[in-house]
């Protein structure tokens, strides 16, 4: 891949189908994980990533040649891709896993993404992805991908400005006590923080158009990656239930209850 002044930008946005944040999480009876038979939607941080990719194109116009979204997951993940396409991405890649396969670990995801990037004939200049998924909260994939690729990384972005001519991205990150600004040469991996933008709602005309946009289906075998888990989940439990308080009629009862609970007077 030879950089040149006329080269147009290609953006890749990895997205994950996760349990919707509005859903109340319940541990499954076997205590092996959570009940997954609930509503799913696109991981909110990934939604922000898709939105940012679309906004970069709105700012840079034709300098952005393509926005591709990719997901790794069961057949139903196709819905998540459709949402991303309706928001403004051009095409999608679905690395399909059999139904009820556990979602892969960050390293597996990063390796898959690496394989996908290497398959892109025209290359990838910017990867924008959520800083973490709200289901496992691992927050590692972006960093691992940048490491595997040997690319620049700008994590937890709250502002992204891309200079297409100079092939440079200026990223603002929110850190303790202020803002940190980074300048990265492309290609770069950017992970998104909550305040980067507010994702749009897919409009009806775009939802209709999204149905005609192409989705490429692949398997981990096609990409030569192994998604076997390296970690073993031993047990998942709910936090202990809060025990409700009780009303007492008078001070004497209060004192009795306090003594019962092990509180005693101490003279100074």
């Amino acid at each position, binding site marked *: 891949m030879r950089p040149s002044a006329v080269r147009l930008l290609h953006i890749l946005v990895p997205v994950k189908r996760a349990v919707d944040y509005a859903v109340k999480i319940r541990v499954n009876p076997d205590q092996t994980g959570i009940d997954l038979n609930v509503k799913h*939607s696109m991981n909110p941080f990934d939604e922000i990533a898709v939105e940012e990719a679309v906004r970069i194109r709105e700012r840079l116009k034709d300098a952005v040649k393509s926005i591709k979204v990719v997901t790794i997951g069961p057949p139903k993940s196709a819905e998540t891709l459709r949402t991303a396409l309706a928001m403004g991405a051009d095409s999608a890649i679905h690395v399909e896993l059999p139904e009820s396969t556990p979602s892969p670990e960050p390293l597996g995801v990063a390796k898959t993404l690496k394989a996908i990037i290497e398959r892109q004939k025209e290359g990838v200049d910017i990867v924008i992805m959520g800083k973490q998924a709200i289901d496992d909260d691992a927050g590692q994939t972006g960093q691992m991908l940048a490491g595997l690729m040997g690319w620049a990384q700008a994590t937890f972005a709250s502002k992204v400005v891309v200079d297409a001519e100079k092939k440079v991205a200026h990223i603002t990150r929110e850190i303790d006590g202020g803002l940190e600004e980074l300048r990265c040469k492309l290609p770069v991996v950017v992970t998104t923080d909550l305040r980067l933008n507010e994702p749009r709602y897919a409009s009806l005309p775009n939802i209709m158009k999204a149905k005609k946009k192409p989705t490429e289906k692949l398997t981990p075998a096609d990409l030569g990656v192994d998604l076997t888990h390296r970690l073993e989940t031993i047990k998942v439990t709910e936090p202990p239930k809060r025990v409700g308080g009780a009303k007492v009629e008078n001070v004497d009862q209060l004192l009795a209850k306090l003594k019962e609970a092990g509180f005693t007077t101490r003279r100074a």
Partner: protein
Amino acid sequence: MLPLRLATRHSLFRSRRWVQSIPSFPHLNTVTEQDLAHFSKILPPTSILSTLPPRATPTDDLATYNVDWMGKYHGQANTVLRPRTTQQVSEIIKYCASQRIGIVPQGGNTGLVGGSISLQKEVVLNLGAMNNVRSFDPVSGILVADAGCILESLSNYIAPYNHVMPIDLGAKGSCQIGGNISTNAGGLRLLRYGSLHGTVLGLEVVLPDGTILDQLSTLRKDNTGYDLKQLFIGGEGTLGVVTGVSILTPPAPQASNNIFLALPHFKNILPLFQVVKRQLGEIMSAFEYIDRTAYDMALEHGLGPILDVDEVGDAQCFVLVETSGGNQDHDLEKLNNLLEHLMSADEPLIYTGTLSQSPSQFASIWALREGLTECVQKEGKPYKYDVSVPLANFQSVVDAVRERMISKGLYGDDGISKVMGYGHIGDGNLHLNVIAKHGYRPELEAALEPFIYELVASHKGSVSAEHGIGAMKAHALHYSKSDVSIEWMRKIKQVFDPLNIMNPGKVLP
């Protein structure tokens, strides 16, 4: 000009303080210290609030029970009773009947027409402490509960059994099921599950002489004589106090979706309603209308933005359609067919719209509609009219009111700042909101009433679709009910409450 009769009565309403325009009740006594002593024999001290000695509760502590949530009605009660059992309610009422003390039954005090406010020191009987679920049958879905149960807690109670309450409204976090029934509240699910006249299976009511009328049936069919419970549904506490409720709850829908559409003109609404009804069939569960003024107001208050500004353009009105069904794939297929039909028409009925992509988007779209009431509250003091008119007249009614305010020179920041309409197209129910930015003024009210009531009557509409009559609209009852109807309502009231102690001054003029 107004007919003389109306004009004279109107001058009574012209007073700035709302309380001065209310009737006095010479037949009733106010609560005294002796009465309080008697109440103390029925109820524990924690269940009584009174400004009278020896309790001497600060007046401020009674404000929750005396002032409605809009701050429009300021009640006069010196005593609030919070019974825990039906027996206590019965004893209180028996005593009040013997002493001719007026009673105002009160639920969550979220009403909009002053129905739960004490006009002349009647004692407030608040049912909030009666908040136990008595039984729930997950097979039939029949729920039996105390009247003071908060609607949302009932929803939460039956949610694990995969059932939903047949009624849902913006005030769900505060309103109580007994109040919902006494006011025959409508709300967002009426289109789907029908009115409370159908879903309520039985009631337990304490009558104005203290008798307990136990009709807490859990039968779906029971044609044995007159159906007395229907009188208490929407009776607004003038015939008795609802203390227990048996209600049929439907199974929870397994898939919910919503779409939000922007329409170029109001005249597209009816054709759209027809198309949507035809294509979605049984899964349509709400069809809500928001006019442009209300939409812009919602955006100013930070709701949305759901649609792209450029795509919305000069759209005149907006529609929220909700579907609830048993199968997400089936529902989505129907929705997608509908949307394709709408978008590909030669002359599209809509500019643009959106289909919620996640439960959070689903919630945000609803929040825009449900949040309107609170936005109105922040804009100033609202005159709220809840009317039923034929669908085709929704916008013309709103426009007529705005034009009248303009022609009277009362439209602007120092008078009426906004006139807007939103509501339930599916039920023919328009919420007409008129906002006075700097507060209520007699001349504003005089310009609005009885103009609006006459306007609604001219369309053969109802002056109160779902908010009830309360104290606010008693004088307007005749716009929607004939003299014969009102006369027979009076006779019914006389039969149940000959002493006229139950919620006096409400409903009947």
